[in-house]
């Protein structure tokens, strides 16, 4: 897939990075302001760790498969 332009893994990396940043950002906002959404297990702060995982994966794929980068 690298020979035919942008890899699908790059698109996935971009989307995960954006989503991860948004969700992590919201989770951090919750932590700082001590406001929590009205959901079960809100005390586990899922947006923080789930957003961080998505962001890390997104950055990995976005950088690893960036256009012009040959493996």
């Amino acid at each position, binding site marked *: *897939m690298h*020979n*035919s*332009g*942008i890899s*699908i893994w790059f*698109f*996935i990396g*971009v*989307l*995960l990075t*954006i*989503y991860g940043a*948004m*969700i992590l*950002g*919201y*989770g951090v*906002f*919750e932590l700082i302001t001590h*406001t*929590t*959404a*009205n*959901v*079960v*297990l*809100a005390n*586990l702060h*899922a*947006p923080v760790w*789930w*957003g961080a995982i*998505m962001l890390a994966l997104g950055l990995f794929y976005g950088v690893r498969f960036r256009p012009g980068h040959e493996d």
Partner: protein
Amino acid sequence: MLGLVPTAFAAQGLHSAIAAALAFSAPSLAHLSTLDIAVIAIYFVMVIWIGFYLKSKANTSEEFFMAGREMTAWIAGLSFVSANLGSLELMGWAGSAYQYGILAAHWYWIGAIPAMLFLGMVMMPFYYVCKTHSVPGYLKLRFGEGSSIVAAFSFAFMTVLMSGVNMFAMAEVMKVVLGWDLSFSIIVSSLAVAAYVALGGLRSAIFNEVLQFVLIWGGALLVPILGLIETGGWNGLKARIAHNIATGVVAPGDYTHMWRSMGHFADNPMGIHWTGIVFGLGFAISFGYWTTDFLVVQRVLAANSLRSARMAPVIGSFFKMAVPFIVILPGLLGLVVLQNANGSHMQLVGENVVKDCARLSSGTGLATPSVCSADLATTSVLPETQKAVLSGTGDVQLHSYNEVLPLMLVRYCSPGLLGLGITALIAGFMSGMAGNVSAFSAVWTYDIYRPLINRKASDEHYVAIGRWATILGVVISIGAAYMVMNAAGIMDYVQALFSFFISPLLGAVLMGMFWKRATKAGGFWGLLIGTLTSIGLWAWVKADPHALRYVALSPDAKDMAENMYRALWSVSVCVIVIFVVSMFGKARPVEELNGLVYGATKLPEEEPVPFYKNEYFWLVIAIVFFLALNIYFW
């Protein structure tokens, strides 16, 4: 910071404006924050971007219909599974798990894995070596144009109906979860699919399917993780289900074992015997679907080598085995964690009960209280809950089995994560629909338009026809969605469609691929009579429900069992007719069967690779996993 606030405190600016514009007036389970809407909007921007980016790479028919045959095993494998992972899958089987327990996982394990592995290791070489563009195309090479056209028309018909069902399921999700208007959901999502598939062809569909696969996991995986934390793990979940059964909150049954209650039709809530699961589901339906449904086979045909084409279904099988974690497990968790607004245990019911117990538009009192009362009496809903429902007021609102997954999303997902979960459902719908329309486009162009309407057009002409066929497929799907809105049960409907067309096709492809003696006439008549048998049996049971005891071999059989046995009958009739007719005809010379039939084909030698890249190594691992799962949940 507008979007970074909890749902309950969300500022109403942009969201209100959009909501008003879209007439979100129906009652809904959840309210999206601006952050959630942004997550969904970004997804749509991304898929359209991919479509436009890939437009320049879909100029020839090989590029448009076969993605240039450049896909790696991983991409083909993920796309292969994702095309099947529609919103129907996610919602329907989560609801079935709530209703029937872990029995629903049969559709993911024995109902998929053996067939996927058989496709990769045994059948794929023939599909790949003969360079066909479609499954009807293989039939044309093997049995001639008659069989191919029967298969092409039945596939095209089934595909757009399936697409319509998927579309309807997605619109229902949006209506229930968000209160969105059905037509709005249908039009927006189908326009997006039409745009990216018509622009970039199969490559665009595959790219988006892989993207959607990641999103589905990213959006849905959190629910079982948090659910298991809440219930204390798998053992805690089992204990709480047992407790709920003992206290009458959950209907009696074995919800956590797959095979123990399969000894007799009457012993399990699905009304199925293990022979129906093994031979009907495990062979007739699943082999038919996974090895001859062009929707999924097309993804593997786009692989960049024979080894990739064989590896793709093997890779896909691992992910397929894992899907129950995000589909079946949330359904089981719903049995113990869902609560009504007043804190009582929430009990889900069939869609007919929800409709019959709908409140008056004034919000107080029921439209048909006597019908509702009669319906509730047939369920396991607790007396106090029934009373609250019949009063037509208060905090108890009935929800259907199919709503279990959205209810679980709402339970655990805060802003952003809820948008991600909703995006996963939309992505599931779009991947299923894109799969259907891209396959429809290829079959329409190659197997209907070219042989019957215009045999000698230029390559550019066929690409243009493919693009228009994509749009036509979407338009017909929209029509089908409105048609099936009144269908009784979505899953039963789909199962019925499978057995109409897919099972006889399996008989024809297997006989064509593994029996050199099978003739052109045998293939045609086998396929036709097998299909008519399936439709005839279905009509017989519809006209006379007592016929079920003959079709499904037991008076205790239920709809699911009927579908499985009907599939088995139709594939059997197809095989017998092909055999009998072929014995009276003249077989084709063996040299004409090269690349088409086992025993008459010399497969290309493959370069040796390290064991960890070898398809047989991963085949063995997949079989071990498959057996271990069935034994663990026996």
